[in-house]
Each structure stands twice: as C-alpha cells, then as structure tokens.
C-alpha cells in the first residue's frame, strides 16, 4: 500500500511539472504576441534625482524644471542659439514698451490650446503673473519684481494682448521670467490660499507644452505623453519616460543593457567607462555649475569670527595666484571640465573671459612675492605668515561640503598649495545641512561650494551686492561701487550695451576676488546612438542635448528604424519554468529522503 502511494506521488509531481512547463511556454508565447501591435515610440531618460513635486510652486532642481519646460510654455522661451529671450519659442510673438519702460505690451500667440482642449489666452498669462505677485509665490516672484519694490500689475485687454505695468522702469520681461504659464481654469481655485496652491498634486498636469505629464510614481519616475497638436512643432515620438535611479552605477548598467536610452549627469569615471561602448555615444555638454572658493568678509556691525586679513585684496589675489585650477580640472574632473575664471558659465553670451595677461596664472613664487611685498612675514618662524596689522596667524578655516562632488578633494589640493605660500588652510568637512547653518550665520573664513543659476546674469551678479548679506551672498561681500553697478545694469535695455556692462562687472569681480572660481563642471551625457538621432543641442552647436532650458530635443528626436531592441528580461514563461524546476528538484529530494528514511527504519 505504502509503495503504491509513493509511486502515485512521483507520477503526480511529474505531471504537475509538465503542465507547468507547458503553461509557461504558452504564456511566454502569448505575452510576446501582445507586445507587438501599435507599439508607442518611447524615449527613456535615466536620471539620479526624482522630482520633489510636479507642482510648479514646489520646483527645486533640474528634474522639476525639465518637466516644467516640457509641460508648459513661458512668455518667452530661451533661444536655442544662445539662451537669451526668444519670442519664436514662447507665447509672446512681439512686444513694445513706452519711453521710460514702465509699460510693456505683448502680442500673444493666437490659437494655442491647453492639454485639456481649452483655449490659452492672454488672460491666463495675466492670471499666472498676478497669482504669483498677489500670493507671494516664492521662487518665481523675483522674476517679476525686485525685493522691496512696489509690485507690477498685469492685465489682458483682449485674448491676444498682455499689458505689464511696473511702477518703476524695468527690463524684467527680457530676463526673461522663468515662469510656466498656468491655466486659470485649474489654478484660480487657489487664489488667496498659497498653502493650498503648494499642496495641489498637479498630476496629470494641464499645461500647453509639447508634452503632458500623465503620471508620476514617487521614487520611480514619471511619464510624459506627446501633445501632438503643439504650436511649436509636433513631436515625432509618443512618450518620454523618466526613470529615477538612486545611484549612477545602476543607471549606467541600465544604459548598457538598453533599458534606458539616455543617461543624464554622469560622473567622470563612469562617463569615461562608456567611451567606445557599443551603440552608445557620449556627449560632453557645457557646464551647468561652477565651483568656487568663497571668502567670508564678516557680517557688518556684528562680532564675527571671520579673518580680518581677508579684507585685503592683495592677500586674496595671492591666494588666487597660488591655486592650480588646471590641476583641479585634470586630476579631479579627469579633464571633463574647464578652468574657472569669472562667475558666469563659459558657454553663456554673458561670459567675460579675462585676457591671458590679466589672469591669475598659477605661480607659487609670484604669490609668495606678493605676500612678502604686502608685509605678510612669518614673525614667529612657525611656517605660517602673520597679518602685519593684527599679528594674527594666517589661518583660514575652510568648509568643504561632503555631498558636493569635488568639494573635499579640491580642499585638499588647495590646502597643499596654501601651505607653500605660508597660509594654513584648515579644512572642516561638513554635511550640506551643517554648511547651510554656518553659511546662514556667517560662521566660517572660506568655503568650497558652487553655483548653478539662470541663463541671465542678473541673479549671479546680485549675490555680490551688500543687500544680499546673510541671504544669497556667499560671504557678505560689500562694495558700494559694485552695488551701484548692479543697479545700473538693471536699467540698461539695449542687450548689446547691457552685455558690455555685465562684462565690466565681471572684470571688476575678477580683480576684487570675493571668491575664486575654481572650475566649470561639464554636464556629462550619454545616449543610445544605435536607436536615436536628431537631438537639438542648446545652445548651438554642441550644448546640452536635454536638460538645457527647453524641450527642443524631445520635439526633434527620431528613432532609428533599424535600432537595437531593448534588453530581454526574464519572461513570465521563464519564471514559471523556474518554479516548475524548484518543484521537481524539491519533490525529488523529498522523495529520495523519504526512501532513505524508510530504508533506515526497515
């Protein structure tokens, strides 16, 4: 009887396994068939930072802005050519202003529709701007009014005319305002309640841009579908899928395996590892950030711990002369960066590059000579120079920030060069949180950090003004001459004239050295060139392929017909086969053991 049962069991498990395998093969075949018809053309972007929120009023960083640029239009776009204001890429097609530039009148594009089919009119633009001013909506407010100034008003006398009236002369419309235009019929419910406005989920997001945010899974990514009736050109592709990775190694693995089509913001080591990889093209995009060594000048009228000697421009210039910026680019960035000079990014039309004879070329002997001449002698023979005025040792406590890519390593290199000119640079590595705390109260001598910023130079110039102390200023740099220059550039309306003036301001900052610009970090991108072509680099000719202040590449991208396929993941059938295998092996072991124990017993 017992033996009979056992045979049945064996027979049973064999039958089960066969059935499972058969089922597995069938399911595998079925799913392969399902996948074939009307497949949407999807471009998949890998990135390492998720959106904070799809709500424009919570926008923080690159990920949100990329979504906003795709989902919404602005009054003016940023031009593909040089990132200045561009009527052809925005909702305003034309504009004029009165003699003292207090009243600006814009002609608004006709026939634009929101993603939900409602018409977009000048009233929506007026609503968006008034909403921001009336409800004091953080980040965007500064584009419309400067701090302390009376707010402007916005009206729409008809569907295609917008009037911007400012109490004081302004050039703000041409910055241009980096503000997504929102549909009044969706957002008017939050007028007067900024907290509720910020809590609005905004998925799916009704906008007017070439793509439409359809869904967002926090921590995983978001999906944007093409707006086929877009006024600025119909996207060839159907979808852009943004996939969030929490580390770069996995993202690069996914690119190699063909699970994503584009990898954004790679670190130099992984970027270099991709060079020559089959089907993948690497692209060195321009920098989006610069790294700086910023000095603290102390908070006026407050007891502070900053080093008084740092007020001496000769000391600051000597420090700049003793920093080998080329070594920073070569050794730390593995060549994927540019030597730093002024506080605007090198690809920008606003960038002023100092002529070779005016640059602080790395020269330890010259730096030593400068300090000797200025009277910084080592009075107590401890290897560290002393301030001739106070007798203090030249000890510069410098914060380096753990989570900022090169900060700690730049600190180590610079401290080494400082030692050679008799300055004791003591490095204090801190977390980003701690750094914000110390920065907020001005408790440091110097720090190594960096800035990104807007295409327009207004913001980066503002951080060197006196009024930004303990706000955006790096170290409370204060110079009445520069403050006056900053106010003046705001009133220059002629772009060429303003550009010249911005050059002068950069030259002044470069000579005064409130901070040393160490390097510009290139944005390193890589993509599956075996599957995609037709990117639009911004600015021309070899700028950012994506993440470059506009949705241009997503509109022009085309799949290559003969392109490689995605990676073959384990299918349902394989999983069932594995399961069946486990059952068979497990059953086998079980039976063998039963046999054995029966024999033992016998």
């Amino acid at each position: 009887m017992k033996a009979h049962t056992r045979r049945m069991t064996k027979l049973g498990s064999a039958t089960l396994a066969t059935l499972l395998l058969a089922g597995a093969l069938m399911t595998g075949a079925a799913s392969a068939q399902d996948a074939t018809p009307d497949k949407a053309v999807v471009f998949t972007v890998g990135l390492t930072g998720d959106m904070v929120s799809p709500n424009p009023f919570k926008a923080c960083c690159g990920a949100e802005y990329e979504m906003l640029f795709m989902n919404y239009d602005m009054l003016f776009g940023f031009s593909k050519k040089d990132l200045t204001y561009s009527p052809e890429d925005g909702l305003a097609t034309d504009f004029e202003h009165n003699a003292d530039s207090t009243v600006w009148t814009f002609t608004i594009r006709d026939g634009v529709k929101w993603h939900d089919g409602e018409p977009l009119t000048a009233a929506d633009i007026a609503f968006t701007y008034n909403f921001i001013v009336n409800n004091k909506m953080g980040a965007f407010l500064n584009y419309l009014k400067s701090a302390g100034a009376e707010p402007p008003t916005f009206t729409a006398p008809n569907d295609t005319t917008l009037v911007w009236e400012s109490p004081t002369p302004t050039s703000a419309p041409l910055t241009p305002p980096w503000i997504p235009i929102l549909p009044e019929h969706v957002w008017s419910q939050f007028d007067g309640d900024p907290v509720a406005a910020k809590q609005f989920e905004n998925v799916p997001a009704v906008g007017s841009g070439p793509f439409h945010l359809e869904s967002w899974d926090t921590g995983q990514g978001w999906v944007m579908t093409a707006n086929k009736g877009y006024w600025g050109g119909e996207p060839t592709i159907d979808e852009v899928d943004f996939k969030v990775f929490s580390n770069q190694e996995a993202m690069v693995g996914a690119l190699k395996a063909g699970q994503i089509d584009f990898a954004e913001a790679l670190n130099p080591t992984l970027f270099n590892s991709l060079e020559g990889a089959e089907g993948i093209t690497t692209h060195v995009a321009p920098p989006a950030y610069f790294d700086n060594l910023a000095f603290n000048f102390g908070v006026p009228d407050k007891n502070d711990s900053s080093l008084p000697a740092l007020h001496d421009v000769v000391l600051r210039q000597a420090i700049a002369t003793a920093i080998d910026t080329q070594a920073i680019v070569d050794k730390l960035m593995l060549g994927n960066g540019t030597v730093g000079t002024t506080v605007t990014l090198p690809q920008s039309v606003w960038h002023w590059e100092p002529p070779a004879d005016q640059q602080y070329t790395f020269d330890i002997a010259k730096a030593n000579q400068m300090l000797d001449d200025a009277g910084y002698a080592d009075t107590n023979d401890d290897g560290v120079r002393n301030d001739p005025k106070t007798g203090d040792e030249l000890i510069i406590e410098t914060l380096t920030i753990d989570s900022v890519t090169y900060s700690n390593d730049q600190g180590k290199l610079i401290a080494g060069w400082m030692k050679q000119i008799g300055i004791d640079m003591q490095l204090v590595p801190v977390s980003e949180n701690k750094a914000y705390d110390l920065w907020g109260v001005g408790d440091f001598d110097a720090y190594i950090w960096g800035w990104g910023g807007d295409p327009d130079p207004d913001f980066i110039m503002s951080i060197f003004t006196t009024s930004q102390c303990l706000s955006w200023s790096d170290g409370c740099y204060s110079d009445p001459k520069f403050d006056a220059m900053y106010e003046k550039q705001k009133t220059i309306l002629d772009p060429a004239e303003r550009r010249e003036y911005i050059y002068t301001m950069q030259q002044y900052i470069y000579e005064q050295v409130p901070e040393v610009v160490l390097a510009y970090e290139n944005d390193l991108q890589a993509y599956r060139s075996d599957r995609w072509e037709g990117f639009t680099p911004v600015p021309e000719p070899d700028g950012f392929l994506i993440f470059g202040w506009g949705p241009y590449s997503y509109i022009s991208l085309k799949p290559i017909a003969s392109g490689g396929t995605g990676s073959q993941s384990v299918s349902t059938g394989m999983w069932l086969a594995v399961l069946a295998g486990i059952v068979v092996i497990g059953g086998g072991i079980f039976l063998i053991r039963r046999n054995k124990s029966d024999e033992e017993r016998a």
Partner: protein
Amino acid sequence: MGSTRRYLLRKTGQALATLAFVLAMNFFLFRIMPGDPVRLLARNTHLTPEQQQEEIHTLGLDLALPAQFIVYVKNTATANLGTSIRSSRSVSAVIAERIWPTVLLVGVSTFLSVTFGILVGIYGAWRRGSAFDKGSLFGSLILYSIPEGWLGMLLIIFLVSTWKLFPAGGYAQQFPPLYGIAHVTDVLNHMFLPALTLTLGYIGEYAVIMRSSLLEVMGDDFIQTARAKGLRDNLVRRRHAVPNALLPSLTLVFYSFGFVMGGAVITEAVFSWPGLGQLEYQAISELDYPVMQGLFLLLSAAVIMFNLAADILYGYLDPRIKEF
C-alpha cells in the same frame, strides 16, 4: 490562568509605555539635529529673507518647542502626520505609497533568509564537522560579512550590464503599465536582484545563530535520554533538539520582521527600489521633520508590536517565562 492574564497585561502595558516614550523622543531628537530645513529648501529656490520667514511661519517652525510638541501629539493622536516640508504632500500619503514595495521586498527576503538560514544551521549543527557543516559555516561567515551594497553592485555588473537578464532598478515598468500576470512577472523581475542581495546578506546570520544554539542543546542530558530511548535520529532532532534550540532564533526572527518597516536603506538605494528605506534617507538628508517623524513612529510601532507578539508567543512556548 490568572498568571497568564497578568503576564499579558504587563507586557501590553510595557509596550504602550515604550510607544509613548518613542513618541516624545521622536519629536525632540529630530529638533536637536544640525541644519535648518527652511534654509536648505531656500538655497535652490531664491527666497528672500521675508519669504523665508513666511515659509517658517507656514510650517509652524516659529512656535516655541513645547507648543510645537503639543501640536505634534494632538495631530498624531488623530492620525494626522502632517505635511512634508519638502513636497507639501501629506505625510501619510507619502509613506503609504512606499509601504507595499518595502513590505514585499524586505518581507519576502526576511522570510527566505530565515527559512533557509535556519535549515542550514540545523543541518550543519546536526552533522557537526561534516563537509556540509564546514562549507555552510564558511559560506555563512563570508555572506554575513559581505557589505550588501557591494554584493548588489556585483549583481548589477554581471546580471544587468553583461548578461542583460534583469532590470537595473525600480519596482515595475511604468509604460505601458502592465496588468495581471504580466505585472506580477514584471515585479518579480525587478525584485529578483534586490531580494537575492538581501536574502544572501542575512542568511548567514540566521544560520550561524541557529547552528550554535542547536550545538548547545545537543550536549544536554535530555537528548541523551531521547537517544537512549532508541528514537530515530530524525525524531530526536525534530521533536527534542530543534524546538529547544529555536528560542534564540525566534527572538531574532521577530526582531527582524519588526524592522521590515525600516526598509533596507542600502539595498533599496543600490536597486532604486522605491521603498521606505529610500524615503528615510531622503527625509533625513533634507531635514523633512514631519516625514522623519512619521517613518520613525511607524518603525517603532512595528518593532514594539512584533516584540509584544514575541513575548506573548514565548509565554506559550516556554511557560517558565511567565513566572518572571
């Protein structure tokens, strides 16, 4: 019966008291950490000092600490965990969407590592000195000491980049979203590597602990008695040795299941798994107090509940404990 009821009441009371203590700790602990959340958010969004003040006011961070504490207790009691400073979304919603991926991944891996770990421990100890014992002990110690982040990276390099078998990260395919069996397979594909990493990473711990407690029991007199009665080897092991050796492992098992809610910070980070561990890391690095508090409350409550369950189960498994 009376002693059982007293035991249960005492254990439940202790659990509640711990929970209350955790509630208070949660609040004050996060406020003595360095960093100012508003400034952290402000650097990226160009806020003026006045706007920062308004933001502080909206977030209730301008109230005195005791006042903030009262608001916190009141809200927690009404299951209102507040609003995330970072995203302005409700904390309960932010946490809720992360619970399932974590319970799935960490739950399954804990189950697998417990099951296989204990089995390996039992067979190793029972045949002490055999090739299986030596091999499994060596393997256990190796796996126990391998950093899971490194193991995960190796799996990505070989199984994703080179052999292209599994997705490099994430929970499921987003577009087109899959349903039914296709969705299950898709999640299994995504889960395979992180689950393998976690299972391998923890299997050693259970194997080593089970092995040593079984070895201890095997020297006891009642095992000799059982053998002397002429019982089969298997029966001695199953009915006498293993049940008595299981208690230390059981503590560990309940403890581990309590910590499932803590997520697996490193493994989730390596495989971009959208679970609680990642949320925790993000909340801590951005000083998102309400999210941190919500997460730690959830984690503490889970650990306390599982400990209570373990205590209660112990009372039945080992009646001597009720006397203490």
